[in-house]
């Protein structure tokens, strides 16, 4: 898979994003890391230009509830409906429902093992084979627990 790992908004902490990037690389994926402080429109453009399959968003700033839905909207407006979006960082339990509704398929918090992320990606691949929705513009309802 080609996976973009992005840091949206004003958040200077990217240790988590880098650890995830490395774990995904070791899992055999091509990972494009955007660097810090990207606007939603910049992230959409990177996903499009790089023709990525998935987008991982890392945020620890508390702005996830506005930034992540804006990115998901941007992806759909750009016609990137098949992109798989997942998120990580400091995202309180009570905010997760909003993110799932906007098209995010998984939220990984602190302490997540990289094996869980691989399980998630394996499940995604399985669902894709069976033609079940996984992309950001393919209808919500399912998310990784």
């Amino acid at each position: 898979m080609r996976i973009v790992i992005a840091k949206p908004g004003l958040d200077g902490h990217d240790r988590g994003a880098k650890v995830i990037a490395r774990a995904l690389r070791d899992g055999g994926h091509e990972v494009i890391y955007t660097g810090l402080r990207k606007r939603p429109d910049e992230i959409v453009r990177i996903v499009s230009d790089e023709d990525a399959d998935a987008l991982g968003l890392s945020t620890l700033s508390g702005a996830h509830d506005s930034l992540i839905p804006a990115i998901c909207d941007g992806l759909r407006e750009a016609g990137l409906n098949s992109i798989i979006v997942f998120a990580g960082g400091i995202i309180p339990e009570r905010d997760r429902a909003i993110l799932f509704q906007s098209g995010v398929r998984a939220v990984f918090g602190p302490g997540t093992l990289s094996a869980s992320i691989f399980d998630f990606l394996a499940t995604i691949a399985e669902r894709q084979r069976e033609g079940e929705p996984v992309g950001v513009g393919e209808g919500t309802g399912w998310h990784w627990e």
Partner: protein
Amino acid sequence: MALGVTEIGNLLDSARSGNRRSLARLLTAIESGQDPGSQLRAGWTLGVTGPPGVGKSTLIGRMIEHWTSKGESVAVLAVDPTSPMTGGAILADRLRMGSTDSTDSVFVRSLATRNHPGGLMPCLGKMTRALSACGWSRVIIETVGSGQSEIRVVAFADRVLLIDGPDRGDIIQAEKAGILELADVIAINKADLPNAQTAADAVREAMGAGKPQSIKVHLVSAIEGAGVSELISDLDSCEPRSSRNTLRIRERLIASWDSTLLSHPEIESYLGKIGDGSITVDEAIRDIVYSLVEGGGEP
């Protein structure tokens, strides 16, 4: 997912009319080995290489600012190695190219080497020509210059910029690897650090500066911008020289030959036979070449 000939043609048409999304999908199709047809065009191409950490991406970011401020459009193919152990890769060149993510006149695509046999990325030539056909006036291929396969990557560009930093001496080492013969222009980056001048002097000396055919060595600072406009004007005026062009074509040919040889369906069997002494290397080469001709040229 393989696309039909018509679909590729439609993608190319759409990309040429300025649709970035189509261009992105076209590049994926080319990367996966599909042929975009004959509508491609050769344009201005630059290969940028040098050891890790000398500031290649940062300096390219500066060059992008310069060219886009003059109304030009710049496309970058940033090549990073694929791990031979896992097949994965981290592609992070674009993050050092400054404010490239929000400008319509810049297109950056990250590519993993994907362990192609013989170090060849057969898609590169087609990708650069597709970008030129779509109107990108400057097309740059960036790669870490640390081995033979990286030399081959820059050989797909018509001019080559080699970048080094202070306190390294890698360029002088690179002479042994054969990169130096391919370089049209050399830049010593990080002029803002001590010893950069000394490094530039050492490289000039090693290059035999002063001779009529000598390569220009620029001292630049990608962070502060010093020397960058002189470097760019030198790149602009640099016409690919026929002697170096022959060397570049030679690299492309060797890469293509290695790729053909190593993807031969019976390569393992030939290796076994040479190993147990039942045929010699010369006989194996003769048989392989013969089988290629028999097979209509396609391995």
